[in-house]
């Protein structure tokens, strides 16, 4: 019992510390055997997930938690005599833990998948170290309550993910990795400049303390713009999406699935900045509409350009990458509508809350089905040795499991009832319709085009007669199927019980984003 209490007290850091320490143990463990290392890495992620569940139960019951590093006890936010926090601290609320679930579930599926998917390559100990570091980067961004710490983890995430994108130098992967790294580096530097702008005015880096003291001066507005653009670029929204398809195309399939969650970690950072950090000041200065409309415009552009660019692609992963861009647009649209009416409580109650519910529910749905789709694309690549849809055909005869998972993912992403994608899109359609009917109609058209392009993939890859090139194709190894199963199982659960999912994990996340005063109160007190 004492052990559970210990874990529960230190859960915010244990979620992060377990993958971090295991990342550096991985090269030592891999001296024993490959299998031991694979199991070790998966266990690390699973342990972290279990801790996250424990923490989530506590948070849903008792509200947000803070964890202060280096203090004599985790709860000492303000050391004696201080009225602003000086130590690095983690602040975990419903939104953070929601994103932690996404990252860890996808990482779990991807790590199991990579047991067999990487078996023809060498240098796997460093590969797994980087994979765990990537998980650490995402978790750090999502858990931290300190804006500079967020920048550090943002960079750890960029470095490890672009190193993994280019890890197996085949064809053009170095090009994709370099582009991703270059844009992330410059985006990160501008984020740092924005953080400096904030620090120079308020002498504090803690997000809650910053949020309580921000005056919305011209420098603050500049900082907000730079932060927003940086995170929008990393989450892959049009017109800054161009590096996203390039990197997603060339990376190994399980890494692509994790890149999706990496981009969502940046989406989380965007929401955190615009709702929590600047939430109070943009309401006071009545500019929530402007900020919200920026997000909506970017979201609608992403939806439309992403899906139309996906249609002519013949590289299966590039096609899916454009869909990732397009689906990011739904989240930006849903949450952007919420942001645009944030200061108006009547509109907020009428449709803003539902729109945010839809947008945030779509984040977890998208991570699961897009992860699953990328994993099936990896399975096709594993068997056929090509990403080119023009060369594929008839794989359904030999790969029934992959085909089945592909159907689940494709139906979910196209928003076909009864899949989970439909539930979150319905929330978005109905609430956005009250904000502006045109946006809702565009969202529906995009959904139809999504279905069209996945019909194209399904037809050209799985249907048709068996081709002579792939006469020897067979189902992919078991661990890859298990990895896909993890994500497919989550999709099925969310499809059958959307209300349970929304009430249990999505609503606390929405409340956490909107409850800006509570976030501040946890740290600074009073408020």
């Amino acid at each position, binding site marked *: 019992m004492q052990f559970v209490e210990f874990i529960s007290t230190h859960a915010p850091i244990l979620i992060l510390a377990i993958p971090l320490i295991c990342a550096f143990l991985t090269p030592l463990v891999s001296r024993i055997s490959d299998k031991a290392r694979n199991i070790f890495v998966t266990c690390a992620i699973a342990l972290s997930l279990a801790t996250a569940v424990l923490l989530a139960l506590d948070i849903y019951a008792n509200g947000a938690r803070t964890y202060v590093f280096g203090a004599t006890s985790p709860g000492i936010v303000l050391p004696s005599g201080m009225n602003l926090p000086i130590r690095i601290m983690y602040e975990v609320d419903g939104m953070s833990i929601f994103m932690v679930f996404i990252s860890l579930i996808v990482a779990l599926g991807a790590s199991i998948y990579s047991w067999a998917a990487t078996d023809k390559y060498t240098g796997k100990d460093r590969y797994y170290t980087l994979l765990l570091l990537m998980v650490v980067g995402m978790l750090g961004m999502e858990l931290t309550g300190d804006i500079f710490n967020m920048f550090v983890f943002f960079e750890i995430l960029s*470095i490890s993910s672009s190193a993994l994108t280019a890890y197996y130098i085949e064809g*053009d992967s170095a090009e994709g990795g370099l*582009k991703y*790294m270059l844009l992330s580096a*410059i985006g990160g530097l501008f984020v*740092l400049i924005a953080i*400096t702008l904030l620090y120079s005015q308020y002498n504090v880096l803690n997000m809650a303390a910053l949020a309580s003291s921000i005056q919305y001066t011209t420098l603050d507005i500049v900082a907000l713009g730079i932060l927003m653009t940086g995170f929008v670029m990393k989450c892959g929204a049009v017109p800054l999406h161009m590096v996203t398809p390039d990197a997603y195309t060339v990376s190994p399939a399980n890494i692509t699935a994790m890149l999706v969650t990496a981009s969502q970690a940046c989406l989380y950072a965007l929401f955190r900045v615009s709702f929590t950090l600047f939430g109070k000041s943009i309401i006071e200065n009545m500019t929530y509409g402007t900020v919200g409309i920026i997000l909506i415009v970017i979201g609608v552009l992403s939806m439309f350009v992403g899906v139309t660019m996906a249609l002519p692609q013949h590289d299966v992963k590039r096609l899916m990458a454009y869909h990732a861009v397009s689906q990011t647009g739904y989240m930006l649209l849903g949450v952007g509508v919420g942001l645009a009416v944030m200061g108006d409580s009547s509109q907020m109650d009428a449709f803003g809350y539902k729109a945010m519910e839809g947008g945030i529910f779509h984040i977890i749905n998208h991570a699961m089905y897009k992860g699953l789709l990328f994993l099936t694309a990896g399975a096709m690549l594993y068997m056929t040795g090509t990403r080119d849809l023009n060369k594929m055909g008839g794989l359904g005869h030999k790969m029934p499991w992959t085909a089945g998972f592909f159907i689940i993912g494709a139906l979910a992403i196209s928003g076909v009832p009864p899949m989970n994608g439909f539930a979150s899109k319905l929330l978005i359609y109905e609430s956005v319709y009250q904000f502006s009917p045109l946006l809702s109609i565009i969202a529906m058209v995009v959904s139809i085009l999504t279905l069209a392009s996945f019909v194209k993939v399904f037809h050209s890859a799985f249907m048709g007669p068996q081709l002579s090139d792939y006469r020897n194709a067979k189902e992919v190894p078991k661990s890859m199927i298990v990895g896909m199963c993890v994500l497919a199982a989550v999709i099925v659960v969310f499809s059958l019980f959307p209300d349970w999912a929304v009430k249990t994990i999505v609503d606390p996340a929405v409340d956490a984003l909107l409850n800006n005063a509570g976030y501040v109160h946890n740290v600074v007190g009073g408020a």
Partner: protein
Amino acid sequence: MNAETILELIYAYTPFACVAALIILGLYCCIVRRNIIKIILGVSVIESGANLFLIAHGYRTGSVAPIYTLSPSDTNPLNYALPIPQALTLTSIVIGVAVAALMLSLAIHIYRKYGTLDVRKITKLKG
């Protein structure tokens, strides 16, 4: 406004002018130059600008280094330079080293595969 105030203003704003110059130079280098190595150098220049920006906030005129044991005995505690921006700058330098190392090693691989470092020719991924 006499000459002394103007001079003081110039002293106060010189670091920020340098920051702006470094960032603009770096961006210019990234956008106009075609060689990948030079683009990576441009990123490093922007990074120096960001670091200078951070560190410039930690200093005020006449302050001493924030080393407790080595400072003169009559130092006013308010007269120490701020240590936090220095720690932040160090962190950002570490990150910069890792980023530069990664990008340069990727550039080596690109040169092997494509036989060129010209970004206009490294466009297999497009459309």
